[in-house]
């Protein structure tokens, strides 16, 4: 008795019998080729941006510990303090220097007063749990991890009165954790909120 031969054309529910390692149709090869080329473009953008682009999360990274980071931050505040706002010290460091920002439940310290166009190495770390550094409304975001110092070389390209939102859950006061960064323009003036260029 001859049974019908199973067709080669089959669905994903059928077991393919025999040799299925066969070349694909031109159209499929065309798509795979184009998709591969696009994947290479996707990949190339990242090293390219390191070479040519202005925003990279590289930083100067080191291990630290909360006590050491707290102490260094206090020294930094003492050295460059120019005022206070709602009890928080305002610090104005010289361009090109190492500057410090500590996140802790539930505040950012100190308030940094920077100059537009100047470069600083901004060291961020946490004194207790994970926090999220989210500079608003610029919208740059970094993870702030206790025991690790993230030294980001930052150049503010806009002047204004900015906020640091914490965007990593850090406990019940998480949504009260807001810091402040003031950037004076190249002439040294503070902008009123309504004048801010984004």
């Amino acid at each position: 008795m001859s049974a019908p031969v199973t067709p080669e054309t089959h669905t994903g529910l059928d077991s393919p019998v025999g040799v299925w390692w066969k070349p694909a149709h031109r159209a499929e090869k065309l798509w795979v080729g184009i998709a591969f080329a696009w994947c290479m473009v996707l990949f190339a953008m990242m090293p390219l941006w390191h070479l040519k682009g202005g925003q990279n999360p590289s930083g100067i990274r080191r291990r630290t510990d909360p006590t050491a980071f707290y102490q260094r931050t206090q020294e930094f505040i003492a050295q460059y303090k120019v005022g206070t706002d709602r009890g928080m010290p305002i610090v104005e460091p010289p361009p090109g220097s190492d500057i410090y920002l500590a996140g802790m439940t539930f505040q950012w310290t100190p308030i940094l007063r920077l100059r537009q166009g100047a470069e600083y190495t901004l060291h961020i770390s946490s004194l207790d749990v994970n926090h999220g550094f989210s500079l608003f409304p610029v919208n740059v975001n970094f993870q702030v991890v206790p025991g690790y110092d993230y030294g980001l070389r930052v150049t503010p390209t806009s002047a204004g009165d900015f906020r640091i939102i914490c965007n990593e859950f850090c406990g019940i006061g998480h949504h009260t954790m807001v810091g402040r960064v003031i950037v004076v323009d190249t002439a040294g003036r503070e902008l009123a909120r309504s004048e801010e260029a984004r």
Partner: protein
Amino acid sequence: MSAPLPAGAGTPADFRLCPTTGRRIHLPGEALVKANAVVSIVALLIGAVAAILLVLTRWQAVHLLPAEWYYRVLTAHGMSMLIFFIIFFEMAVLHFASTALLNARAAAPRLSWAAFALMAGGALLVEAMIWGGKADVLFTSYVPLRAHPLYYLGIILFAVGALLVVGVFFANLVVAKRERRYTGSLPLVVYGAVTAAIIAVITLLHGAAIYVPTFLWLMNVDPQVYRLIWWALGHSSQQINVAAMVALWYMLGALTVGAVVLNEKISRLAFVLYILFISMASAHHLLVDPGMGSAWKVVNTSYFMYMAVLASMIHGFTVPAGMELGQRLRGVGSGLFGWLRRAPWGDPGFSSLVFSIVVFGFVGGITGVTIGTEQINIIVHNTLRSPGHFHATVVSGTAMAFMGTTYYLIPLVFRRKVAFWGFSRVQPYLFAGGMLVFTIFMTFAGSFGVPRRHWDISFSQAPFDVQFNPAVDLVLAIMALGGLTAAVAALGFVAVAVTSVFFGEPLGAITEGVELAGVPRGITHPPRHRPDVDRLNEELHAGRGAMGPAPGTLVLVFIFLAAFILYFFVNWKVLSAVWKIG
């Protein structure tokens, strides 16, 4: 017929013959499929209720939950959806794929039930801890935040159970091969399940590596190491989902429109690329972390030079192309898109399938690859753009594929009619529409800098004021409305599933060619191919030049590529406008 089976291979009485597919179904194996599917729907119910509460809180005008409960319910939502709902369903898929789809038996039912008990017990423990306020640490539980030890223990029990089921899955495959329950290679759908199982091993090994020390809290687990290892569990668990989802795409395509496999080599290559590289992209979450350098970030976030993205783009072509070919080979539709217009849009399995593919690809995939580049992540990390992305992949993609599959599981495995048939046929549209609005508007809010996991963006209790663009309130309100629509559709789906399974009308005999309320069209009108399908397939392939046998799909994927290119480069442009950082 096949040779006599070895001793212990199960008596004929352990099997039933499926009247629709002709497969021999092992009853003990089927019971495992049912149990895992039912528990997964219970988890979905908890997650969906949580979703409604959350969405009504982030809608600032409503702001339903107080702060403590917001973070608590958010923890419950993450765990219930991303772990319990999804993984229990995947266990059902693994049992199903290694038994029913191979005409094979469940090789270790008792061990499988023990594993199920571990998973269910662990899940209950975790939920109890969360709702009891003992684990207000969110789904990620980043140290040094600390939950009650039983929270971690519950997760460990669940993970051990899941790992056992994965082991049983591989054992089933070995036994099925040895007992010659199928000839040739594993069907492609099962191959996708294998992919999911392998990624599950990678995932669960890392999960054990991080949760056991944390549970024991013998020494303080380093916070950066915790994040590194945890995300190998956290993101990779979602890649199990991707593999399972794609496997189910091939299955639903076959069941609804007789979708064929264009080329086994190409489709399997795509699964192999997933196996090798997809888990590396756990690095997506660590791109702006201080502990790892740029080389590590670039190599890992790119799934090794985007090879896993190539895999997704392959499936993104072969799945719809297979559907198009399945239609054309049966003479359904003419012209470029007739195959799609004349498709069974009233079959909730089919509509779920299509929305899963489209929203996963266009919204989830494109946003995911883009925000997962090392530098663009700077403008994205921990804003609402993150959950905006993953609600398009996991919820609109994987969950919809699971829902579509359920519409077929109910008649085929539970042998009941689908309840509330009128609503069921509309449910996928409601869910997909709601999720589309939700994800797009959530992403939009994120681009304004709105943080995720945050109770109050009016910052009423903060020392400094934060003034979001006034549009943000409206954006969040629309997001909430989309989310509510989807959550209601999800609750409706739960009602359909529970009612069908426990109170539904038994299926009985089906007359082919006759529509029957409560029975998806793929069962009453099975999309069978003609005996001369090979010749027809030849004709469709030959003389078509570069457009090939599925020209409609080729046009669609080029539209997809254009959207991808546009979105990708617009984001680099936006990035270039922010402060200089290096």
